[in-house]
């Protein structure tokens, strides 16, 4: 009888252990992708590279995780498995994830005005944290990078007038609409969130918080996050980590905010991240915005941005081709780092070829 119970317990344990793989210090390796579909994927992602002209698709890293195991991994020099690669605007979704932990600790509500945690926002008393996360603050931000450097708010914030205190620079932006009325993608909104987090925690706890709240529990050891002269994290642009470490964030999101036994992000937080922004007009951006993440959803009758990927796909996306794709139903997490300078890279094409390669 005891022996029988033990057998059942052992069986249950084994079933459980087999049900879900999690990375420890390293990622578990699954059966590696092979065959002509992998060749087609590599032909697209890793064509011959020209570091003088910087033309075409220039993938630095491609990592595919299925159900918690590495099934494909490839790098282009000088990027390797240990390179903490610049994530650019993936940093925005990382800040949202850090905020999710703070949300689970009841440090704020989505309906809280940003001014409650960041006094310079008193000039915009009706802008809430939800508005900033949905990019519906109504602040008149100009997001262009290279093509309109004179007018670009991002360039001014990162390199010239705003660089000493990026959140203050964003708070000083005049509105073009009342909060909650219109969507406009804004790096300023992300840095206001970063400053609001600092207000919730106090300076001392804040400078370690991304590590204590998120990176260390997930086993992320390669992360760097640059800050401005005011020691506010540049949440819009400047987080760095290896592809393997970024995939840990993807797995956390794919599993609805749970890491092992711990519900690190409340489920309603992840649901908010994945809820389309109602004010978004079709064609305003290359994907449909959610709560500081990007969604593969139809908007006003227009097709999904990545028609060859399932509609539950969501992503964190950054300048020059950085991407973290999460496909919860397909149990896939894909990290793609790049250095694309001409915009020829297509998310849908990569996703299509990865999906073809993982078919049994």
């Amino acid at each position, binding site marked *: 009888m005891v022996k029988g119970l033990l057998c059942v317990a052992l069986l249950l344990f084994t079933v459980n252990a087999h049900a879900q793989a999690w990375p420890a210090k390293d990622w578990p390796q699954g059966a590696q992708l092979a065959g002509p579909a992998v060749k087609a994927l590599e032909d697209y992602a890793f064509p011959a590279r020209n*570091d*003088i002209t*910087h033309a075409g698709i220039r993938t630095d890293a491609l990592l595919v995780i299925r159900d918690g195991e590495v099934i494909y991994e490839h790098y282009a020099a*000088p*990027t390797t498995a240990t*390179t*903490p*690669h*610049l994530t650019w605007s993936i940093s925005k979704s990382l800040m949202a994830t850090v905020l999710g932990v703070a949300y689970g600790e009841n440090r704020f509500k989505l309906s809280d005005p940003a001014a409650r945690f960041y006094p310079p926002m008193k000039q915009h008393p009706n802008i809430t944290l939800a508005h900033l996360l949905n990019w519906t603050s109504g602040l008149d931000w100009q997001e262009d990078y290279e093509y309109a*450097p*004179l*007018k670009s708010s991002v*360039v*001014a914030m*990162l*390199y*010239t*007038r705003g*660089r*000493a205190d990026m959140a203050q620079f964003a708070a000083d932006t005049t509105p073009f609409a009342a909060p909650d009325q219109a969507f406009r993608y804004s790096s300023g909104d992300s840095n206001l969130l970063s400053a609001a987090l600092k207000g919730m925690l106090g300076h001392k706890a804040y400078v370690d918080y991304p*590590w204590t709240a998120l990176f260390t529990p997930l086993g992320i050891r390669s*992360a*760097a*996050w*640059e*800050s*401005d*002269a005011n020691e506010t994290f540049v949440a819009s642009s*400047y987080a*760095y980590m290896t592809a393997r470490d970024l995939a840990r964030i993807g797995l956390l999101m794919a599993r609805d905010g749970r890491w092992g036994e711990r519900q690190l992000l409340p489920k309603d937080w992840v649901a908010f991240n994945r809820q389309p922004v109602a004010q978004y007009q079709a064609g305003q951006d290359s994907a449909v915005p959610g709560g500081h993440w990007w969604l593969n959803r139809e908007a006003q009758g227009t097709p999904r941005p990545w028609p060859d990927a399932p509609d539950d796909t969501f992503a964190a996306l950054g300048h020059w081709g950085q991407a973290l794709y999460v496909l919860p139903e397909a149990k896939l997490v894909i990290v793609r780092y790049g*250095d694309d300078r001409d915009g020829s890279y297509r998310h849908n094409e990569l996703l299509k070829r990865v999906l073809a390669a993982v078919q049994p």
Partner: protein
Amino acid sequence: MIRRRPFISLFLLLLLALLGWVWHERVNLQAFPDIIAAYTAKEYCSCRYVAGNPADYCLGYVKQYVPTSAFADHPDSRLVTASGLGRTHSAQWLGERQGCRLLP
């Protein structure tokens, strides 16, 4: 005046519009020349000392159409200085987690 001197009138009108635009964009125009030096110093510093890429790769990585000069990377102190359009800026590596930051 306009009928007697159409060309000079048009010129004056355009000059006035230009001056108006310069006044309107004075803050942006004053900051504009700083972009290339600040961008080059900051992104080279991060490419080299945060991502750990080789120096020659990072030089190609930060190259833009606007020329830069007086580029200096001090590996011992991890301080990077670049000049362009008459302005000079420096970025300093601060630590493993903190990465690089532009100096004031």
